């Protein structure tokens, strides 16, 4: 084993620095931990055309407390990738609202051409489920880009 300097010298050389090879493992462990613990929104986007508004603001609520309700042009409602009849919306939202400790914010993602009657029915359903905070999802409209429709 000892080739030149003898055992004593070798031993002191091994202890002279912190082993840095495992640092990479720690870094990767962290990387993988963050990758796994990151939760992305689950529902898929519905093909809708956004309404635009200049007063668009970011929702001041945690992502997990936001429920998307999609309203398509023909009045079909989609919640969490499932098509739901208008009358059942309050039954679906109510347990989710209770589970979120009344922090749930509904993001109504209506197509810009949806007749307002569907939006009104949806609002009535949400009111009967007790939800008060609602956001009409819109795309940010930049002003000074010409006349608005």
């Amino acid at each position, binding site marked *: 084993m000892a080739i030149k300097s003898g055992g004593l010298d070798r031993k002191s050389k091994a202890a002279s620095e912190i082993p840095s090879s495992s640092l990479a493992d720690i870094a990767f462990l962290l990387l993988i931990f963050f990758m796994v613990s990151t939760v992305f929104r689950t529902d898929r986007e519905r093909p809708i055309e956004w309404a635009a508004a200049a007063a668009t603001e*970011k*929702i001041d609520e945690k992502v997990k407390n936001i429920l998307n309700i999609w309203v398509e042009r023909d009045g079909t409602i989609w919640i969490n990738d499932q098509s739901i009849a208008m009358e059942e919306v309050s039954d679906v939202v109510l347990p989710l609202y209770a589970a979120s400790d009344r922090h749930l914010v509904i993001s109504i993602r209506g197509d810009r051409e*949806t007749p307002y009657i569907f939006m009104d029915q949806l609002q009535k359903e949400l009111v009967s489920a007790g939800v008060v905070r609602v956001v009409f999802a*819109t795309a940010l409209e930049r002003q000074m880009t010409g006349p608005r429709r």
Partner: protein
Amino acid sequence: MAILNQKKSKVSDEIPTASMADIAFLLLIFFLVTTTFPKDKGLEVVLPEEGQEVAVSSNNILHLIVRTDGIVDVRRGESTSIQQMRPDDIESVWRQEILNRPGLIAAVKTHPDAPHKYMIDVLDALQLAGAERISLQILEES
């Protein structure tokens, strides 16, 4: 010289692994920083709670009736005169009205067949003007 030679060969012996951790952390921090979650955005409104209807003086209401073609009929309180305007013009109207009557409520009544975007246009104008008391209703045929 002989000692120096020996040292040199030991250095090139293996790939230095000490900087591996730095590279990994660099990647970790890079991805942490560049990951942006798409934040939801829109126009926030607070719906009334069920059964929570408040009687307000009808003089304190600005009626905004959104028609199917996007034109808005504006009616002040109890007066019967109707002013027609585009959603863009509501912002300045509201700013003027709120000066005279600080507790003014905007009642947005949308025609059942009017596209959602026209209601959004009106809501947008009201929020731009800083309106806080907005009521969203459906236009009942009378």
